[in-house]
């Protein structure tokens, strides 16, 4: 062992491509699975959530306007960058989730592979979900998938990296921008993922990462008029129904939480992309 004193990292929020502290100045202690201090994480406030929504809205035109091929390459780049910081993720996941080295490695591997899986989806969604409609008249009529807009994602509380990637990547692959609330007690891998995103050609504002309490941030995001959809996967027990009610005020698309957090190792299918995809149908006359 070297006797060099380590340079520790300050864990901050990720908003609009930058790493600010919470405007509130609040932090909270993050401990490992055994209760030992790991770091102080930023405790995101209502104002931070609003700033994140503004950033996500601002980034939407650019991200959704990219070609699907380009978006796919950017998401693939995320996988490449994660691979390079594999050891750091393993350490954080093992500490936060109390996993053995091999289990933590498996989780990180799966998280990297999940980005690869979704990266390959961006330029196939239109073919799978859209198509021509044979209307009974002289019209060319076609339907195509489009992203819903700004999606708030309450990331799983238990699976701090694989779970997080499993809920975030589909939202991005569909072309949405995201405001993510991390696991409250296990937020560190999310901040490291934010550092990966910042160096992966993902435009600033496309993903905004808030560490803190999904209970309070969830309320504000569910009622926010400029949020178009919300994934309640990580909503604290007993609060999902209330968040869904608040989301109804602006007719948000709501992805309800599973009864219990899944293992995240199954084939994800399309089920996490389609809730945040709209179908647009365009008509044009033929021959007149």
């Amino acid at each position, binding site marked *: 062992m070297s006797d060099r004193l380590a340079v520790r990292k300050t864990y901050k929020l990720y908003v609009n491509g930058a790493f600010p502290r919470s405007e509130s100045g609040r932090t909270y202690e993050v401990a490992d699975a055994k209760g030992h201090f790991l770091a102080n994480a930023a405790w995101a406030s209502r104002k931070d959530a609003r700033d994140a929504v503004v950033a996500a809205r601002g980034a939407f035109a650019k991200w959704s306007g990219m070609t699907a091929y380009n978006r796919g390459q950017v998401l693939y780049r995320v996988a490449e960058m994660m691979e390079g910081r594999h050891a750091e993720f393993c350490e954080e996941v093992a500490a936060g989730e109390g996993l053995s080295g091999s289990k933590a490695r498996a989780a990180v591997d799966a998280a990297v592979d999940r980005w690869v899986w979704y990266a390959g989806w961006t330029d196939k969604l239109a073919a*799978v*979900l859209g*198509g021509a*409609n*044979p*209307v*009974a*008249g002289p*019209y060319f*009529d076609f*339907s195509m*998938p489009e992203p*819903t*807009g700004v999606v708030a994602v309450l990331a799983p509380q238990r699976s701090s990296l694989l779970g997080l990637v499993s809920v975030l990547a589909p939202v991005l692959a569909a072309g949405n921008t995201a405001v993510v609330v991390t696991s409250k007690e296990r937020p560190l891998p999310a901040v490291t993922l934010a550092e990966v995103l910042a160096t992966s050609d993902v435009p600033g504002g496309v993903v905004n990462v808030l560490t803190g309490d999904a209970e309070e941030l969830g309320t504000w995001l569910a009622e926010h008029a400029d949020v*178009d959809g919300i994934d309640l996967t990580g909503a604290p027990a007993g609060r*999902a*129904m*209330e968040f*869904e*009610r608040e*989301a*109804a*005020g*602006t*007719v948000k*698309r*709501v992805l309800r939480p599973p009864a219990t957090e899944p293992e995240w190792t199954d084939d994800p*299918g*399309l*089920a996490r992309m*389609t*809730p945040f*995809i*709209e*179908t*647009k*149908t*365009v*008509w*044009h*006359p033929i021959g007149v």
Partner: protein
Amino acid sequence: MTSLFEYAPAPESRSIVDIAPSYGLFIDGEFVDGTGEPFKTVNPATEEVLSQVSAGSDADVDRAVAAARRAFTRVWGPMRPADRGKYLFRIARLMQERSREFAVLESLDNGKPIRESRDVDVPLAAAHFFYHAGWADKLDHAGLGPGPRPLGVAGQVIPWNFPLLMLAWKVAPALATGNTVVLKPAETTPLTALLFAEICQQADLPPGVVNIVTGAGDTGRAVVEHDDVDKVAFTGSTEVGRSIARAVAGTRKSLTLELGGKAANIVFDDAPIDQAVEGIVQGIFFNQGHVCCAGSRLLVQESVHDEVIASLQRRISTLRVGDPLDKNTDLGAINSAEQLARIHELSDIGEAEGAQRWQPDCVLPDRGFWFPPTIFTQVSPAHRIARDEVFGPVLSVLTFRTPDEAVAKANNTTYGLSAGIWSEKGSRILKIANQLRAGVVWANTFNKFDPTSPFGGYKQSGYGREGGRHGLTGYLKGATHS
């Protein structure tokens, strides 16, 4: 203005319909009396009472849901999919056979011109059944994931603007995918749904597969909030849609909503103006503007504004407002006194806020509910008539200079149901169509519908689609696209 050609009255005979003095609810294959306070349905063109209709109480809704559940578990769920399809084909054919009866009844109860009920509402309703009939035994091939399964009992609440067509949009996909139905028609337009119940009997549809419970808001609430309903589908106002989404929150119920709209109809300076004017008229005056996807905000490029408005006024002056059963009628009656009051209120606010009202000279009938075709110019995006859904024959005209401004103004709304683009330039149309945040975009046409073509909104115009392969997903377990 004196008209160049006078029209002789050409009324469609109403003798083809036989309206009973009173109607019960249709539960478990039979007409039964409701236990709620019965209500009257009137002809909005004359205020004549057409019939008295049962209102479903909580207990009635309970019975209807129980019948639907029984039918789902014992008959409709286990049935061979091909046989389910055959029932739907039968229904489509029966609707075609009795199409004139449906059309006359729809115009009597709703107030819409017979030309529309006869040529649009009823044929499209039959087409919806015919289209979905074919899906019943092909769901495994629809690309909606492995082994799609029905949800169970669907509770459906529909509006008064297209009573039979909205019934078809709801019932046909639900049945094709193996669900059973409790449908609540709108309070002011229950009659064609009750005639449809007769069709179900003629088709020998097993009892309980389709249940029709008439009534007002309370009946609808009982359907939506019933514990044994697995799926809720609603078409109506955004306000009611929000409250339904709230009521369904935290339950297992799957929900689709088709809500209000404030569609932009964008006319560029290179548009074919005569065609555009026809499209503007069709966009806002079709069905008296009682259309959620109506092109109620006209965005005209500044350089052609005067030309478009002059041409539009000329065209509107030739529209015939009056007897819905007259085959020459272009605009029928406003559906209810309540809706008429809302149109008056918003139009008055439009004037008070500084917009300029224009209406053609037109004589309105003495009795019934009427509103002349109306356009407001000098409308600013902040005006209520540019933001609120009027749901009547009232067009707000705004202008723009650049395509970017047109898109910004078009998207400056909480709604996102539909939009129109008029231009001769293909690349422009495709670019603008991409930028509009709306579920249906009509380019060089407007207000076109087809069972194969998914319909539904972005933003606060709701979620889920009706029609096409997409429309099936709202009625299937684990179906993976919307």
